[in-house]
Structure formats: structure tokens, C-alpha cells
């Protein structure tokens, strides 16, 4: 890191003086958020798509020059005649996906979330969502899963997409969620958006009595003092934080809500309608994501319940190494524990 960048960072964020600790490297674009030694599964989306395609000949795959980086290459290798490379042209990617669906096929179209949400929105909205076509949008690098900065960090993708009628939004936690979600996305009518986790993806939910059901939230563990409502990779952090809080004699329930839209308000509100501290946890901006989804459900039901968000701030995030950034922006397990303890006083 250059001196200029470091001093700018130190000045604007008040971090420790240079040289206090070794600086982590941004490293690869696709930095893994798996913990050292954690059980992982390789390219769960790609393998799940191959399996689904073996059962359903309507499934085709396409990408915009990001097959290797969205695990679509697994599908391309297994079914070269059912894979279409559309080049670095996201408007064409999603317009063509609509056309493929018009002929009765079931496309899975992958790119990074930023390009799907920001660059190709008009094509997703009018060509896919308005005619309610079964096109499955697969977005890599959701939220803060890359240290490349705002060009690649889709911190507001759910905020952008939640306003789109007909679109189902899925924010999976781990490889179990992804493996089970893919065939359900293919089978469901209408368009879906999957916040893809790719590469070596943590395997977490196999240790719980859990199955992914499209449109459903699930209680992963009960607890008397605090209720976590989480989605995406933050469910993994929520479970870790719940374990850590047990050492502080704080009993935490965790509700995993991987389908953001349509939202399973019934399950979530039943858990929130208690005296426990309510916390939402998401790998997304505090604007327009899980927190606001839960908040609107709470207000609509007249619960009058305070909800504490753990979410990314409403700002363009720094570049850097993921562990550094997750700590900086409050997504790390330690920051969650500290926030809950502070809330409980």
C-alpha cells in the first residue's frame, strides 16, 4: 500500500498509526470469507446447476465473460452445447436470456451483482420481470465479498432489486443453501436473483436441522435473550456470534431468512413478537436490504418493536483485505458480539 493511501486512510478513519500491525493484502479479487480450517465445498453453484440440468433439459447457462468467476465454467464444461458465452455485454446477456426463456428454455445467467443490478437493470426489469419469464440471475460478489472497492462491491443490490415486481431474491448462507436452492429456482415460475457465493464456499447449515425452502425463513436455534434475523453469509456469522455470546451467558436465537422477496414475514414476526433484543444481520447496505424488509414487516404488523441493524454503512466502502473490511464495517463475529453486549448494557 502506498504511503499516500495509508495516510489518507489513517486520516479519514482514525485507524492505528502505520506500522502498528502488519497490513493484510487485498490479494485475489475473489478473496474467500471462509475461516481458516473451516469446512468448505468447491463451486457449489456450478455443481448444483449441472445436477439440475441433468434432470431438466430446459436449463441452459450463459455468462458475460465471467464464467470462471461465477462457477458457471463447471456447467459450461459439463454441457458445452447448453452454454452460451455472451461476452462482456451485460445488456445482451439479459436481453438474450429473456429471448431464450421466450423459446421455453430455463436460463441461468451469471455476472457480478454490480453489473446485473446497476448496468443491466432496464433489461432485467422490462425484458424478464415484466413478462414474468423464468430467467435466473446469478450475481457474484454480493455485498462485501471483495476488497476491490465500489466498482465490484454490490453493497446495494438488494435495495435496487427489491422494487422490481415479480423478482424473487435469494441470499444464501453457504454451500448447503446454494445446492438446495438451485433446483428450486429452476422449478419456480418467474425470475429469480441469487446472491452467489463462489469458489470454496463454507458449509455451515449441515450441522443444523435445516433444509432450504424457497420463500421460507427457518429458526436454526432458539434463545431466550436475543433474536438474530439474518441472511446470506451473515447467518454464518450470526451462528458464530451466538456461540460466543453463550460464554457471556447471553442466550441467542437465530432465524435464517434466505429469501428476501417474497419475505416470510409470518415466521420472522412470530420470533420478533417477544421481549428479546431483535437484531438483523446482513451483508448489504443498511438501506433497502434485510433490515428494512424486517422493519417494514414489523411496522405493518404494528409491533412497535425496536430492531437493531448489523449491516454495511450507507457509504462507498474502502478497498482492502476482506477480514480488515469486515472488522471495519461491523460484519465480523467480534464486532457483532460487542454490539449485542453494548445493547444489553
Amino acid at each position, binding site marked *: 500500500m502506498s504511503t499516500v493511501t495509508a495516510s489518507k486512510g489513517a486520516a479519514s478513519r482514525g485507524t492505528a498509526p502505520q506500522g502498528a500491525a502488519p497490513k493484510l493484502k487485498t490479494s485475489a479479487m475473489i478473496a474467500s470469507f471462509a475461516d481458516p480450517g473451516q469446512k468448505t465445498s468447491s463451486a457449489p453453484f456450478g455443481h448444483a446447476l449441472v445436477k439440475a440440468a441433468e434432470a431438466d*433439459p430446459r436449463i*441452459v447457462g450463459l455468462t458475460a465473460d465471467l464464467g470462471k468467476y461465477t462457477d458457471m465454467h463447471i456447467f459450461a464444461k459439463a454441457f458445452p*452445447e*447448453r452454454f*452460451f458465452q*455472451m*461476452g462482456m*455485454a451485460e*445488456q*445482451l446477456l*439479459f*436481453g*438474450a*436470456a*429473456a*429471448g*431464450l*426463456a*421466450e*423459446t*421455453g*428454455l430455463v*436460463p441461468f445467467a451469471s455476472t457480478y451483482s454490480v453489473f446485473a443490478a446497476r448496468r443491466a437493470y*432496464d*433489461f432485467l426489469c*422490462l*425484458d424478464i420481470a*415484466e*413478462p414474468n419469464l423464468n430467467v435466473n440471475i446469478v450475481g457474484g460478489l454480493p455485498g462485501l465479498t471483495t476488497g476491490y472497492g465500489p466498482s465490484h462491491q454490490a453493497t446495494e443490490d438488494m435495495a435496487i432489486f427489491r422494487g422490481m415486481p415479480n423478482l424473487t431474491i435469494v441470499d444464501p448462507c453457504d454451500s448447503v443453501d446454494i445446492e438446495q436452492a438451485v433446483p428450486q429456482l429452476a422449478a419456480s415460475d418467474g425470475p429469480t436473483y441469487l446472491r452467489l457465493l463462489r469458489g470454496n464456499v463454507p458449509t455451515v447449515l449441515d450441522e443444523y436441522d435445516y433444509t432450504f425452502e424457497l420463500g421460507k425463513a427457518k429458526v436454526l436455534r432458539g434463545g431466550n435473550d436475543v433474536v438474530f434475523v439474518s441472511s446470506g453469509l451473515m447467518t454464518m456469522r450470526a451462528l458464530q456470534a451466538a456461540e460466543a455470546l453463550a460464554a457471556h451467558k447471553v442466550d441467542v436465537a437465530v432465524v435464517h431468512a434466505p429469501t428476501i422477496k417474497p419475505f416470510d414475514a409470518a415466521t420472522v414476526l412470530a420470533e420478533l413478537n417477544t421481549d428479546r433484543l431483535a437484531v438483523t444481520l446482513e451483508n448489504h447496505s443498511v438501506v433497502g436490504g434485510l433490515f428494512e424488509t424486517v422493519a417494514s414487516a414489523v411496522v405493518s404488523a404494528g409491533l412497535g418493536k425496536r430492531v437493531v441493524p448489523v449491516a454495511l454503512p450507507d457509504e462507498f466502502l474502502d478497498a482492502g483485505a476482506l477480514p480488515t473490511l469486515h472488522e471495519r464495517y461491523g460484519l465480523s463475529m467480534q464486532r457483532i458480539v460487542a454490539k449485542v453486549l453494548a445493547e444489553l448494557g
Partner: protein
Amino acid sequence: MVVVQDQFTAGRVGETVKDRIERVAAAANRIRHHALNMGEVQGQGYVGQALGAADMLAAVYADQLRYRANDPEWEGRDRFLLSTGHYAIGHYAALAEAGIIPVEELESYGSDDSRLPMSGMSTYTPGMEISGGSLGHGLSIAVGIALGLRHRAQSGEGSSARVYNFLSDGELDEGSTWEAAMGAHHHQLGNLTALVDINALQADGKTDTVLRTEPATEKWEAFGWYTQRVDGNDVGALLAAFDNAAARATAVGRPSVILCDTKVGRGVPLLEEREKAHFMRIEEHEWQLCRKQLTAGSTGKAGR
């Protein structure tokens, strides 16, 4: 019940070239009359575009397109995509001419609860393949449809149907049009034909003052397309171009484009000579005059 009523390419059995041109020109004339009648209901609108594109639409629906009027979703049909949603007035007229929607329904154009909204949408109208209107979308969707039809044909399910995308020279402003142009060539979608209505007019004025799209021919050629440029109001020239495109149409091959220079308001001198406007206002007393001029111009030439 499926009634077989296909229209096939390149004229009818036993038809002379002259007969064919007259038949298509007569269809264009009826499309223009329909468009004037629809325009009068609204008092204004995209009549100029409909009149300008009527010959292109007639060549498609009266001569080229394979379809079944009473089964618009027939799997084996050729696809005609209207990317320019605001040309719906002309497209509805062509759909009526083709027998896909009743002529009487045209008077509901742009009215509440009509199946014929001002901007064409697939969810409203039989025979309307896509929802256009956000310009620069049609060709991308056409790429996907052509890919999908070819893919399904390989597995014995689909057809060798052709895909036509109607777009305007204004849509050449949109980057997505060129993404799709590259994609169609890359994937060698030889059953895809783009029809570009070059009326040299956009919402804010003449195309060459808004954003220069010329030289259009060289651009399409450079993108690898089989490119023809014709007078889009010359039915004979249009049919010859369509025949050339049809002769080259193949599952794997170069996509083709027919660039059609047209005149806004064509067939009605009053409107041809008026200051050109994207959204044309026509006074109440002028509609009958427009119809008279249209009839006078076509009598003895293309009437029947």
C-alpha cells in the same frame, strides 16, 4: 383446434412479380388507412412513423412471415419483434391486415382497458412477441430467441423459424444495439434479420443533429452482417432485399440486416411536407384530407 394457415416466403404459387408487388402495396395501403383511423381516435401520435414503415410491415406480414392467424403462439411461427414500442400503431394495423386481431378492434387503440396500448407490449396483444419501448432492447432479445430456436431445433423440439427484429435508426444510438449486433455475428445466427427503419428522425430532431448514426451501412458490414440498404418505401426493392436475405437464411451463418430509408408520413403529401415531428399533431379537419390524399395517391397504382 389448429387451423393450418401458413404464410410463406417469396410470393405465392403462380404469382407474377408485378402481381406480388401490387398485392403487398395494397396491404401497405390498407395498413396506412388503419393507422390514420387509429390516429384520429387519439387526435395525434405516431402516425408519421406508421405511414413511413407501412411498406416494411406489409412486406413482412403480407409476404414473408410464416404465422397462423388464429394461433398466434404456434411453435413453428417466424418471430417478428417490435423493438420500437411506439410504432405499435403501425404494428396493430399490420396485425389486423394479417387477421391476427380484428379490424374493428383497432378503434380501441390507446384507450383504457384496450388490448392495444400506445406502446406495444407482449402482455397485452396477441401476436406481439415482446414489450418494446425502452429502445435498444429488441435486438438483444432477438439474439436469445434465435439462439433458443436453433438450440431446440438441434434437439428435435424447435423449428427453423426465422427471427425478425424491427428497429429504428434512433436505436442505433443505443450501445445495447451494438452489443447485440456483435453477439448475433459471434453466434452466427443466420436466421436472424434486423429491419432498420431509417426515417432520419428522432424525438429531439433529425438524427444527424441528435447523434450521427451514419455511415450505417459500413457499420453493419463491419459488425459482420449481410447488409442491404434499400428505399424502404419501394415495395419492389423491399421484396428483392427480403428475398436475398431469405436465400441466405440458415441456422448457422451471417445474420442479415435490411436498412430501409423511409419517409415520415409517406403516402400523405400533407404530412410528408409538414415539419417533421416525432409525435405528430394533426388537426381535426385534416384527418379526412389525409385519407383523401392517401386514397388518391394509391388509386390506379396499388389499389385493388
